[in-house]
């Protein structure tokens, strides 16, 4: 038997390789994902290992501070006590804050600032160039910051401290911080001496102090001594080992989440690959009916036939796993390069291949293949020995009858799906609604998959109408061929259908979200330009609004402030801007009543808090006194703030009194080059950034398109696998129909027509998958947008016809490519040889 299997594999190598490509791609995806996850864990581990190196004791602020005005932290007195504790060789504060860094063009960017350890052992970075700062007017920056902000050693570097005070430092060195969230975020990173760091925001004490032990002390002894010195309350005192363990746990959790997302895509790819494999084996078995029957005649038992087919699948799965494993390592290297290219400085490509990864790829590759082959193998055992004596393999028996089980299964999935969707749409919480409705759509997808063979006939008749009318006999034959074995056609197109469904679903939802966001921007930015602060939490100076108002090209300006309560935030706008630059839709009450001490709240906020016009809301800011504000109106708008109040009212809150959140600028009609005029005023201010609605939209759209592109690429893999499936089915069908093709040729079909016939068949199958997939995807997209919509946010369905057209065109082109080889093969066979083949 073994010999037969090996000989069979050898003889069918080309065919099996084609099918194993599908599995190999799926495995490559899984492997790539796992390797990437491990690589991220490893590099984060490296990073955190740096953070924890030489740390024997870590003191972190834990509990609540005693008074609300005091920011919790480690006071200089506590630091001194730690330093004096027996066994502490050195102790340094660890902290970070975002600080605006003024780049070469005079504009501020957010940067992470950290205090560098005074003790070299406690430093968490690796020096690249120069040296670390020793004086308070010196600074070091991370390698990438130096290159993006074009900073060289010896140059001055400007940071904006509290109150936009400019602090100038001399750059003395660059360091490498490795791959972590900060470096991936694209933020700049600068290091200062502890004193210089403290000077940026004097009243904020550090949240952590790390210490290294003197020779002769164990970690535990030093921990105990530190605990004795500063007491237990309000601090979490950990040994270096505990700190390492804790951070590593966090690291793994984080990279685990990322891996999970990618794995979801890998699973889609594998499901599609499994369908292709299933199909391949089904066809292989159907095609080898006579061979199997001959084996049965010669004395092969059912079990031997079953094992034979499975063994073939096993070998194929193993081979595909090996290819996939190496492919996946390549994929991971590629993905890391892509990730590094987002930031500049780059990083080291890590390719950790763990035993788990290898085991997983082999398990997935072989298991999926073998499982996909089980049904076909069972079918193979049912081949009657007498089939060896028939001149033509009996392909009629495979034509499906509507089995009760099939319909019942489809109905079951359908009911679950519709139930999930209806239930999900009723849920107020967006995430939960999307999840439940999303699961519902997947159940519906399953229902359609189960019903596939029944759908093939009608869909084929509809889609085939045009080619039948235009292309004549070959197209008629092609359409008949596509419909002759509904089960096979359904299985072939199902893979593509899944891919297209998910792609179009994501595309529709993303585009709908984009349109909604754009509408929101229009609403939020009624002005021509909006001036905002480049740095979060740094308001714009008030003079800026006056300066802007004085510009001759400017019609009017409206500054806004922001007031943060405990669970809400409100926008403060000048009274006279309401109705001009601010035009919220009023659902009850009147904005005319909006005056000092009153507020107009957003409908969603009103619902959440259960307030109505005439009632009072209490806003308790982070700093300062709680204020009671009377609700005079309820307004509606896409995700505006929770409400608006007048500038005067907002100035009751200290944080809003500091400066402006944004300044809306409306130009006079017909002004050309308004932007230059506005920028003349804003340029000297490092914080001020000028945005127009159009630009903001473009930025947002770019980001969404990037995400969409990423998802297209991921699902694209599944689509590629699916197209391999079509090529596969066609190749096998061509082999199966050698005799038929020869007969057609004998009857006068030209080679070109024969090729055309196969191309049309391929295109029909691809379109079947794509058309059903698109319908489902758009329908599901509608479901998801409806689920996302609630009282205050309505996501409108937007069908991106352009992108869908691209998808359809892609499917057609790919189908033509998929048909190329099989068509060549069919046309090459000579008529006589084809007829002779029994």
């Amino acid at each position: 038997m073994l010999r037969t299997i090996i000989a069979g594999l050898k003889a069918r190598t080309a065919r099996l390789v084609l099918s194993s490509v599908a599995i190999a791609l799926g495995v490559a995806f899984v492997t790539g994902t796992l390797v990437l996850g491990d690589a991220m864990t490893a590099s984060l581990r490296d990073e955190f290992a740096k953070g924890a190196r030489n740390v024997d004791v870590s003191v972190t602020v834990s509990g609540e501070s005693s008074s609300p005005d005091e920011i919790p932290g480690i006071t200089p007195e506590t630091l001194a006590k730690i330093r004096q504790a027996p066994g502490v060789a050195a102790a340094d504060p660890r902290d970070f804050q975002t600080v605006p860094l003024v780049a070469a063009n005079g504009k501020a960017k957010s940067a992470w600032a950290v205090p560098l350890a005074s003790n070299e052992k406690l430093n968490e970075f690796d020096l690249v160039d120069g040296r670390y700062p020793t004086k308070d007017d010196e600074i070091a920056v991370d390698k990438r910051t130096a290159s993006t902000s074009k900073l060289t050693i010896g140059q001055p570097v400007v940071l904006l401290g509290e109150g936009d005070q400019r602090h100038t430092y001399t750059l003395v060195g660059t360091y490498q911080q490795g791959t972590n969230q900060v470096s991936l975020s694209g933020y700049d990173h600068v290091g200062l001496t502890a004193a210089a760091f403290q000077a940026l925001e004097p009243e904020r004490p550090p949240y952590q102090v790390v210490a290294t032990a003197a020779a002769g002390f164990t970690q535990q002894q030093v921990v105990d001594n530190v605990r004795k010195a500063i007491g237990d309350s309000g601090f979490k005192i950990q040994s270096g080992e505990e700190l390492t363990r804790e951070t590593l746990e966090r690291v793994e959790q984080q990279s685990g989440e990322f891996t999970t997302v990618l794995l979801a895509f890998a699973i889609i790819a594998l499901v599609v690959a499994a369908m292709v494999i299933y199909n391949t084996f089904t066809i292989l078995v159907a095609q080898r009916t006579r061979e199997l029957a001959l084996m049965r005649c010669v004395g092969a038992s059912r079990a031997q036939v079953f094992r034979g087919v499975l063994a073939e699948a096993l070998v194929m799965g193993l081979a595909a796993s090996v290819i996939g494993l190496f492919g996946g390592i390549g994929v991971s290297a590629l993905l890391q390069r892509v990730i590094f290219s987002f930031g500049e400085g780059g990083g080291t490509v890590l390719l950790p291949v763990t035993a788990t990864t290898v085991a997983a790829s082999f398990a997935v590759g072989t298991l999926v293949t073998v499982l996909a082959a089980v049904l076909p193998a069972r079918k193979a055992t049912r081949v009657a020995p007498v089939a060896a004596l028939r001149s033509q393999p009996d392909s009629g028996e495979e034509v499906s009858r509507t089995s009760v089980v099939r319909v019942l299964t489809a109905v079951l999935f359908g009911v679950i799906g519709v139930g999930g969707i209806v239930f999900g749409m009723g849920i107020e919480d967006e995430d939960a609604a999307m999840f439940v409705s999303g699961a519902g759509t997947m159940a519906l997808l399953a229902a359609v998959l189960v019903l596939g063979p029944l759908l093939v006939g009608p869909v084929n008749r509809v889609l085939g109408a045009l080619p039948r009318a235009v292309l004549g006999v070959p197209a008629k034959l092609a359409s008949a061929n596509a419909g002759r074995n509904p089960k096979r056609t359904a299985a072939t197109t199902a893979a593509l259908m899944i891919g297209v469904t998910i792609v179009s679903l994501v595309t529709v939802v993303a585009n709908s979200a984009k349109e909604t966001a754009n509408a929101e921007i229009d609403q939020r930015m009624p002005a021509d330009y909006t001036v905002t602060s480049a740095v979060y939490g740094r308001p714009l100076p008030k003079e800026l609004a006056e300066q802007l108002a004085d510009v001759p090209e400017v019609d009017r300006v409206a500054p806004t402030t922001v007031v943060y309560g405990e669970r809400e935030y409100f926008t403060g706008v000048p009274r006279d801007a309401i109705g001009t630059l601010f035009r919220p839709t009023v659902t009850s009450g009147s904005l005319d009543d909006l005056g000092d001490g009153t507020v107009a709240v957003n409908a969603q906020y009103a619902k959440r808090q259960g307030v109505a016009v005439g009632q009072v809301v209490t806003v308790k800011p982070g700093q300062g006194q709680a204020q009671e504000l009377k609700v005079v109106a309820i307004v509606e708008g896409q995700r505006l703030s929770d409400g608006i109040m007048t500038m005067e009212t907002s100035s009751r809150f200290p944080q809003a009194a500091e400066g402006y959140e944004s300044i809306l600028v409306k130009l006079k009609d017909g002004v050309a080059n308004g932007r230059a005029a506005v920028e003349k005023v804003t340029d000297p201010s490092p914080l001020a950034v000028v945005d127009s609605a159009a630009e903001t939209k473009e930025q947002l759209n770019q980001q969404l398109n990037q995400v969409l592109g990423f998802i297209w690429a991921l699902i694209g893999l599944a689509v590629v696998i699916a197209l391999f499936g079509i090529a596969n089915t066609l190749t096998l069908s061509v082999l199966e129909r050698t005799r038929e093709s020869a007969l057609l040729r004998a009857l006068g079909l030209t080679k070109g027509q024969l090729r055309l016939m196969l191309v049309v068949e391929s295109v029909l199958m691809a379109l079947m998958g794509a058309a059903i997939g698109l319908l489902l995807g758009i329908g599901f997209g509608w479901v998801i947008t409806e689920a996302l919509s609630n009282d205050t946010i309505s996501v409108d369905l937007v069908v991106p016809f352009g992108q869908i057209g691209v998808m359809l065109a892609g499917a057609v082109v790919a189908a033509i490519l998929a048909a190329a080889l099989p068509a060549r093969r069919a046309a090459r066979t000579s008529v006589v040889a084809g007829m002779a083949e029994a």
Partner: protein
Amino acid sequence: MSALVSDVGTRTAVAAANLVKVYGKGDTAVRALDGVSVEFAAGRFTAIMGPSGSGKSTLMHCLAGLDNVDGGSVNIGGTEITSLGDKELTRLRRDRVGFVFQAFNLLPTLTAEANILLGLELAGRKPDREWFDTIVDVLGLRDRLKHKPTELSGGQQQRVACARALVARPDVVFADEPTGNLDSRSGAEVLDFLRMSVRKLGQTVIMVTHDPVAASYADRVVLMADGHLAGEIDNPTADSVLSALKHLGA
């Protein structure tokens, strides 16, 4: 010659009693076999003949246990096979029955040698090398053993099929139009071999054919028409078979 085989013509190798086989249902039902009873002696070469649709192939399928029957019984070497399950039938085919078909006798993926030994390998039996060599030499396949079926002529392919049928020393070899796809010279070679395997090696061969010349190689011809036995001829010649067939057709 007969020293090798002592029970020529005395023992029954295959017997059928009242065989009924119906294809289809209701109005379209066809009684392909309508109560056929026939015996085949061991060590004899029997040809089953008849016009198209006479039921000769169906008879062979039922005799060989390839097809199930709707009535009657089949006995091979003392074993009643109509009641056997798939497992027992498989074992029967492995150990006690050999097949030679009109076409598609060989697995295209295996060499001639592997094809010959396939049945034994499936059964997990060691081939009797001496016997194997005898058959290969008699059939003149020695220098073709390493070739794939596609590299063999039609006649060679049929000879490989004969070798495979014989290598397990079955109780009976069923041959279904073994010369149907061959030119007359190759066909004669194959028939010569089948006859020789009966006379010299003591095999039992049952052959279905519609060619009177092929039938003339047999010791006995069983004639069929419309699902019934329609007579038999001992020690046939091409002419006697032809005239019997003409009689049937009339």
